[in-house]
């Protein structure tokens, strides 16, 4: 994953640093194409879930349209989104307002 960010001004840097702070959620969104068994495989492979946890999150995506699969620092959250995207799942980042 590339990490060569450039910041052109102190103002931009301040905004970016503020954005990077706090807790972020990795949310996987439903799609009608990817197989349930494939999504379970990806959750196990990318997020290190056991079979039961992976199935629980897969069903949550399927039934509710989304599932929060990880939360933590922005940089690591971005890395998860990148890898999930590499496996063709649609994932987004959301700030965790509770933190």
């Amino acid at each position, binding site marked *: *994953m*590339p990490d*060569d*960010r*450039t910041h052109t001004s102190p103002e931009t840097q301040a905004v*970016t640093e503020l*954005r990077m702070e706090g807790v972020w959620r990795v949310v996987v*969104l439903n*799609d*009608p*194409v*990817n*197989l349930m*068994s*494939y999504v379970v*495989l990806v959750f*196990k*492979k990318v997020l290190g879930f056991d079979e039961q946890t992976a199935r629980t999150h897969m069903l949550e995506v399927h039934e509710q349209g989304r599932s929060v699969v990880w939360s933590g620092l922005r940089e690591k959250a*971005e890395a998860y*989104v*990148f890898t999930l*995207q*590499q*496996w*063709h*799942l*649609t*994932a*987004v*980042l959301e700030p965790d307002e509770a933190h």
Partner: protein
Amino acid sequence: MKRIEVKLALPVVAPLLDVIRELADGLRKNLAAPLALADLDAEFHDAWVSELITSQSEDVQRLLALFNDEFFTEGVVAFDEENAECIVRACAAIRLRLREHYLKKVGDETLETGEVDMATLEEPLRRAFMCYLFLATVQELIIQHLDASILDS
């Protein structure tokens, strides 16, 4: 090394390869699933997309490499620890692309269940849907037999 060989019906599968090859060309330039991160800075976004497209293209080339001379003489393709991960991802990419290019009118519920009366579909929709189901079958075979290899790699 665990390896599975699958005998395919050449007259059925060969016509689907034209669809796969056509979509593979598009996947050299575009992501199969849109990148949904609006707040990445432009440079970072472009670097991500470039890296994802490279990875996606490599996966799709591995999938296309299955259909070599041996396939056209014997009708056999082989999956193993070396190619399983790339191929299962490539199938996902092509299936997403099929939806965008051919299958939107089929409807999401049909795409989820895979159940449709083929006789009601006209070309090129029919061939695209057969391709969609064929790639799902490949994924299921790999996940059923090589799941552990992918997780350990």
